[in-house]
Each structure stands twice: as structure tokens, then as C-alpha cells.
């Protein structure tokens, strides 16, 4: 029914001018080796912001931990980063498990974000120190022994971070080896790249183990992430709100996280197209395909919120009413509705149109709106919880006022996020930011053929 092979001349699919493994490797590695003045300038700027963040952090440290409400914005930043940046490996693992071919060019981008996991794990003890004691308030630990919540939270976050790193490293090995073989001997990076490549030579056995390990680690990451998010929101949000009983909320937080993770992926792909010149890799196809789950998640954002809202509104127990008043309709109304528009209404109205989804600017703008909304939303959730004066009440009464950020808080928010971006940029110069072997594998599995007088793509079903 088809007219037979057309060979490599028509064999390339989405990547213009990059037909073979060698082409891809050459192109990615040349971009990877180059360190432009623009890149340096960005590093400098982000570095300054990060140092300012540290200044803010030290200012807060000087105030001490007696008043937990001082730390609301710090925890909000932590939560934003933990949810957004650490949701990224889920995107890669999930798409790998469902064998989506369009994932190939950007999986490395999202896996490189796993590096923030280590940074965040180091910050978790600080946030834990700001928590009021467990006695007399809601908590998920039920008199669990051995230093709950501190020790166990730290272990949970650590496990997640290490799994993410292991996933990143497993999937980066072949490309690290490629970098090792092609970096000039003078390069300062060569030492660390060689060490990280760990003598990978690409034998059949190594590939088989690598493939298995990637699947298993991806599955473990997928399973761990919701549990870690549950601990995060149980300890830092739900446990601090008197009378709050919102069983859906950990799942809601996972939806928030995945949504802003995809938003950040869009932003990163756009930035790398603009500034890194990776236009052949991040094409409309990637934006278009990823915009569909982004639309679905925008609807889920509403759905999960509504599921709590309708139960609270209808049930009307005093504690339901207080929660509703505090988080949605009272002091935190403006942040809530801002996030409602940025995360649900705006994306929904924009993304139901195929022409918007099938573009580069559309998903990027929506992604930016989502990430911004997620930051505001996490701020609302965490700061509101830390702003409650008495955590031992049964019902939130009276309803406390909203708490606006001080200068150190703003520095922490900006500095924290800048630090993560900085880290990502540094990592991209150690691990090639596009997965050479995955893209090349895609080139082998997709062919362009003639079918009844038209050009079609033939996609192999890999195992």
C-alpha cells in the first residue's frame, strides 16, 4: 500500500537539516561547547539576584524562628520551586512511559531541572524549623516516632531529589559520553564531564540497562512525587489551618505542580529558541502537543478546586465556612482570583482554539501566565497558613487578615527563583540540554513516505 522506502533523503521528519545521528550530535555539541557573552551576562545578573535572595534569607534568619509568620514567604517560594521545578521530571517520565515521540527534543530540558531537588532539600530543614510544634494542632504524623515531621520530611524530599538526580544521570550518560569525546582538551568542564560519564561506551548491555533503569526510576519518581507533595501541603498548609479538612488538597497540589511544570517547560523552550538558537528542536509540534495536557490541566485546576468548594459551600459546617471565608472569599480573595484567571480562565479561553495551541507564542504566553499564577497561588496557600496566629483552635475564628510581603520576603522570592534558573543554566553546560540519543532514536523510528500521492509519516512502534 506504500511506495517503498525513500531513504534518508526524505527520511528526516521534524528536524530541518538534521537527518542523522551525527548531524544532531554535531549541532547540539557545538551549541553546548560555546559560552557566549550573553550567557555570561545572564549568569551575572541571576547571580546578583540570587545573592540578594541570600541577603533576604539572612535578614529573616536574624529575626529567628519564634514568629513562624515571618517565614511564610520563604516557605511559599520553597513550595513553588518544589512543586514546579520538581514536577518537571514527571513530564519526561510520563511521556516516556506513554511513548510519545514528540517528547524527545525536550526531555533533557525538563530532566535538568531535577538538579533543583538537591538545592531544595537543603532548604527544607529551615522551613521545618519555622513550623510550630505538632502538639495541639492538626498534623499528618499521628504520633509517628523518630522525629516527625523533621526527619521524615527531610528523608522524603531527599529520596525524591536523589531519584530525580539518578534519573537525570541515567538518561544523560550517553550524552555525557558524547560530550567527553568531543570537548576540546582545554575545556575546564572536561574533568567533571569525564567523571560523570563514568566510562560509558554504549555497549548493547549498557543500553539495555540504561533503558530499564530509566523506566524504573521514572516510575519511582512518578510514585514518590505525589506522596512528597502530600507531606509538603500537610505540614506547611493544611496542618496550620485550624479545622481544615480538605482531603483532596494534596492531589490538587499535584495538579498545580504539573500545570506550572508544563508552563515552565513552555517558557524554557521559548527562551532556548530565542537565546540558545535551538529552533530546530523546539518546533511548533512540541508546543502544540504539550498545549493539550496544559489545557486539560487548566480544566483540572478548576475541577479540583470546585470539588472542595462545593463540599464546603454546601456542607456549611462552621469550619467549612471559615476555610471558605479565609482562603477564597475573605483576605486572600485577590490572590485567589488572580490565580483563578491566570491558571484557569485565561488558559481555558485561549487554549480551546487550535490555532492558539498550534503556535509558539500562544502556549508560551499561556505558560507564562500559568507560572505566574502558580507563584501567586503558592504564596496564597503557604503565607495564609503561616499567618494564622493560633494553630491550636478547632475552627478558624476570628479570621486573620492577609499578610503582605516585606522587603526580605521579596528578596527571598526573587532570589530563590533566580537561583534555580542559574543552576539550570550551569547544568546545561555540563549536560547537553538536548538529548542527542533520544532525538536520534526518534529519527530512526520515524520515516516519511509517499502514500496515495501524499507525504505521510510512518511511525514505528518501539517496544
Amino acid at each position, binding site marked *: 500500500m506504500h511506495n517503498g522506502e525513500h531513504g534518508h533523503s526524505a527520511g528526516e521528519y521534524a528536524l530541518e537539516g538534521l537527518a542523522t545521528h551525527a548531524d544532531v550530535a554535531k549541532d547540539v555539541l557545538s551549541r553546548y561547547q560555546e559560552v557566549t557573552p550573553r550567557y555570561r551576562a545572564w549568569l551575572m545578573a541571576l547571580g546578583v539576584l540570587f545573592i540578594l535572595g541570600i541577603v533576604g534569607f539572612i535578614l529573616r534568619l536574624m529575626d529567628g524562628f519564634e514568629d513562624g509568620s515571618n517565614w511564610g514567604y520563604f516557605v511559599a517560594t520553597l513550595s513553588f520551586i518544589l512543586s514546579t521545578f520538581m514536577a518537571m521530571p514527571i513530564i519526561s517520565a510520563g511521556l516516556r512511559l506513554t511513548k510519545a515521540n514528540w517528547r524527545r527534543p525536550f526531555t533533557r530540558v525538563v530532566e535538568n531541572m531535577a538538579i533543583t531537588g538537591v538545592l531544595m532539600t537543603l532548604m527544607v530543614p529551615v522551613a521545618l524549623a519555622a513550623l510550630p510544634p505538632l502538639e495541639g494542632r492538626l498534623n499528618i504524623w499521628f504520633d509517628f516516632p523518630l522525629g516527625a515531621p523533621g526527619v521524615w520530611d527531610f528523608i522524603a524530599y531527599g529520596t525524591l531529589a536523589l531519584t530525580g538526580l539518578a534519573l537525570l544521570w541515567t538518561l544523560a550518560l550517553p550524552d555525557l559520553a558524547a560530550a567527553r569525546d568531543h570537548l576540546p582538551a582545554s575545556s575546564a568542564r572536561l574533568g567533571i564531564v569525564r567523571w560523570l560519564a563514568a566510562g560509558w561506551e554504549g555497549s548493547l548491555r549498557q543500553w539495555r540497562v540504561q533503558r530499564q533503569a530509566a523506566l524504573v526510576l521514572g516510575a519511582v519518581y512518578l510514585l514518590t512525587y505525589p506522596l512528597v507533595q*502530600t507531606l509538603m501541603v500537610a505540614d506547611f498548609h493544611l496542618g496550620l489551618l485550624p479545622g481544615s479538612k480538605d482531603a483532596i488538597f494534596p492531589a490538587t497540589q499535584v495538579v498545580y505542580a504539573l500545570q506550572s511544570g508544563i508552563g515552565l517547560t513552555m517558557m524554557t523552550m521559548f527562551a532556548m529558541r530565542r537565546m540558545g538558537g535551538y529552533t530546530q528542536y523546539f518546533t511548533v509540534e512540541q508546543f502544540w502537543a504539550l498545549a493539550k495536557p496544559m489545557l486539560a490541566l487548566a480544566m483540572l485546576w478548576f475541577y479540583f478546586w470546585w470539588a472542595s468548594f462545593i*463540599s464546603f459551600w454546601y*456542607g456549611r*459546617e462552621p469550619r467549612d465556612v471559615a476555610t471558605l471565608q479565609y482562603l477564597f472569599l475573605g483576605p486572600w480573595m485577590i490572590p485567589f482570583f488572580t490565580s483563578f484567571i491566570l491558571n484557569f480562565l485565561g488558559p481555558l479561553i485561549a487554549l480551546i482554539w487550535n490555532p492558539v495551541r498550534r503556535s509558539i507564542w500562544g502556549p508560551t504566553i499561556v505558560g507564562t501566565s500559568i507560572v505566574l499564577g502558580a507563584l501567586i497561588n503558592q504564596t496564597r496557600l503557604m503565607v495564609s497558613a503561616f499567618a494564622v496566629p493560633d494553630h491550636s483552635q478547632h475552627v478558624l475564628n476570628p479570621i486573620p487578615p492577609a499578610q503582605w510581603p516585606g522587603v526580605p520576603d521579596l528578596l527571598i522570592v526573587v532570589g530563590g527563583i533566580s537561583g534555580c534558573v542559574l543552576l539550570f543554566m550551569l547544568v546545561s553546560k555540563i549536560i547537553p540540554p538536548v538529548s542527542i540519543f533520544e532525538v536520534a532514536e526518534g529519527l530512526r523510528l520515524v*520515516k516519511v513516505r509517499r502514500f496515495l500521492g501524499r507525504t*505521510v*509519516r*510512518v511511525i*514505528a*512502534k518501539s517496544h
Partner: protein
Amino acid sequence: MYYRRTLTEAQINRELLGTVLSTPLWWVVLTGLLGIVVAGMLSAIGFMFNQGLKVTGLGEPVFWGFFITNFIFWVGISHAGVMISAILRLSQAEWRRPMVRAAETMTVFSLMCSLLMPLIHAGRPWRIFYWVFPYDWARGIWPDVRSPLVWDPTAIITYLTSSSLFVYTALIPDLAVIRDRSTGWRRTVYGILALGWHGNPRQWKLQGLAGILLSALILPVFVSVHSIVSWDFSVSLVPAWHVTVFAPYFVIGAVHSGVSAVVTLMIIMRKLYKLENYIWEEHIDAVARLLIVVANTWLFFFWLDLVWALWLKEEQEMAVWQLRMFEAPWSWLFFLFFTLGYAIPVPLWMFRKVRRSFTWMLWTSLIVNFGMFLERLLIIVPSLAKRGPWVFDWASYRPSPVEITVIGGSVALVSFLLLLFSKFFPLIPLWEEKEGQLFIDEIKVGARVVPAIVKEH
């Protein structure tokens, strides 16, 4: 390999229209037997109408029992149809082709069955149409839209209408096939139903678009239906019902039981209708992988429900879980529910051998549904029968023979309707299979030939 067999259109017609164009003996026997069971169910319902609800095992404080459990169970089963066909259509998964119609049809019939349950469970069912249809214009009083019991019929009727239209739209090309293969009055009837279908590019293009567009529109309805059913419980003040997680928990539970039911149905269909050419190990394997994901998501929500029940350390909530987990007979029902619904099947599905064995998959998917029926029962009854603050009605619930007959009969009813449907319409979409045949291809990678499919650019 994926598509190893290449079938001609004539062969597809012949094999898939087997029961439509002729009537095998097993069909007559099976339909007759199921018809007897359905008749038994109808007489049980008639007896109940005649005698009143005193013939059930219900009392106080357990006002809802097997009927509402069964209602939720069948709404749950109905979620598979859309789950399979809409999601897989949107993601253009090739392995959807043999299962979409069977799943959608099961949606329609199980929804009808579930709709029957709240109607017969009401105290005065003959007045129930007041509920669904606005009544009493003279005094200007209509159903109270604030009640979740008005949301329910709205959602279910929306879902039933949508899925029936969905089935019918995709059936039109196949009706044309039957029209062309039949004679006499059948030809006239199928001709009318086929609406004069020719199969020109315009019609095919719109048929394709209809699949995508209707899938995209039905998906949000599908999520809303079971959520609305769950809000019957979560908006109430009953301890262990007033839980915010119920909506997604119910939906994912419904998908778990519904997709399992599709597996059961596919395997039985394959055997009965001799569809070995269409339903392969690969299909069941793919659904089983999907089921692993669904089951684990379900477990996460179940865990959230459990943890947040204990979260406030409230006496009443604890009493419910105490009853569910530690007091007979609920404790062993709980054990059965968890082993059958999760602990046995999910680890088994991890093995490729199990996923590719029709026998194993038949039994594992069957026990999932047994477990999920118990899950719904455990959500409803212990929450009402708990040892609450009022000692005068610390009482439990035991279903009466009438209720058990109706539950058993409802399984027969859905099977009976599916069998009837299969007599008049093909359960596997002919045109989807024919289209699938067009897209079979192969790619050579080194020394190996990998099966492939053609995708539009």
C-alpha cells in the same frame, strides 16, 4: 508485532457481521436464559412496587443500601466507554479500534441500568417523574435545583443522550454496510437508519471530525457525571461522606471498574463471536497497562480519603472507619474489597505473561468489579450504620432476597441488552477496522523490521 494480519474489507464484513446476518444457536439460548433472569428481576421489582419498600432490608439509620450501591456501580461501569473511546481517539491510539463501540454501547446500557436503580429505590416511584421533569405548573413549584438529586438526573440524562448520539453517529457507516448486505424489510429499516450514507470524502471527513469533537465534548461530561454522583455524598453532613476528595476518587474508581469491565467484555466477546482476528493479546496488554496506572491513581485517592478521615481525630469519623475495617461483617468485606479490587489484580498485571493471557485477564478483571461493588457498599452503608451519638438506632443492614435478585438481575439486564444490540448492530466498528488496515506499515531498523503505522502529517 502489531498488525500482523491483513484483512480485506469483504472478510471484515463477513466476520464482524456474523450475528447480525444470521442467528447462531448459542445466541438464542443465551439470550433466552438471560431473558428469564431479567424477567425474574422485573417480577421482583413488581413485587416491591406492590408491597412497598418493607420487602427490602432497609431500616433506620441505613436508608440507602444495595440499590444505591448498584446505582453507583453501574454509573461507574458506564465510565469505561468514554474513557476508552474518547481518550484513545484523542490520543490517536491504534489499539482503540476494536474496543470503542463495545465500550460505548456498554456505557449506554449500564447507564440505563443505573438510572433504573434510584427510580425503583424511591418510596413512591410512580411519582418520581416529578423529579426529573418540572411539574405542577398550576402552583408554580418545580424541582429544587439546590438538591444534588436534581443534579444527578441532569448529569445522567446529559451523559446518556451524549453517549447514545456518539454511538449512533459512529454507527452510520456500518449501518450502510448492513443495508447493502440485507434484503426485504431489514433493508428498508437499515436504509432509514443509515440515512442514505454513501461514504464520500465529505462524509468521511465529518465522521472523523465528529469522533474527535464529540470525544472532546464528552470527556468533561464524563468527569462531571461521577463527580456529581459523588457530591450526593460529599455535600452531606454524614461523617465519612463529607469529604472533598470524593469527586476525583469516585471518577478514578469508576474508570478502574469500568475499564476492567471492558476487558471482561472484550474477552467474552472474542470467545463468543470468534473475533480472534480483531482482539489480540496486544490490545488486552495495552488496556492492562492503562489499568495499572488507573489502579495506582485510585490507590492514591483512597489513601488520601483514609488519612484525612483520621486527620481531625473526630469520634464519628473514627467510628465509621472502625466499623469498616475492624468489625464483622464489614471487616471481611473490606478485606475482600481491597484484595479483589487492588491487591491481587494489580501486582499480577505487572507480569507481561498475565497481561497477555486471556484467561488471567478475564478473571482478574472480573474480581476487580466484584471488589469495586464492595467498595461502594462500604462507602455507603457503614457511614450510615456507624455507632453514632444516638444509641437508639445502632443498627446494621442486611439485604433482602428482593434486593439481591435485583442486583443479580441488573448484571443479566446489561448483558441481555448487549446481546440484543449485537444481534442488530456490529459490536466492533467495521469502518474503524478497515481504516486501521490502511495504516499498517513497517520500518526497517538495521536488521530488524519494526511494525509501524502511518500518521497524517
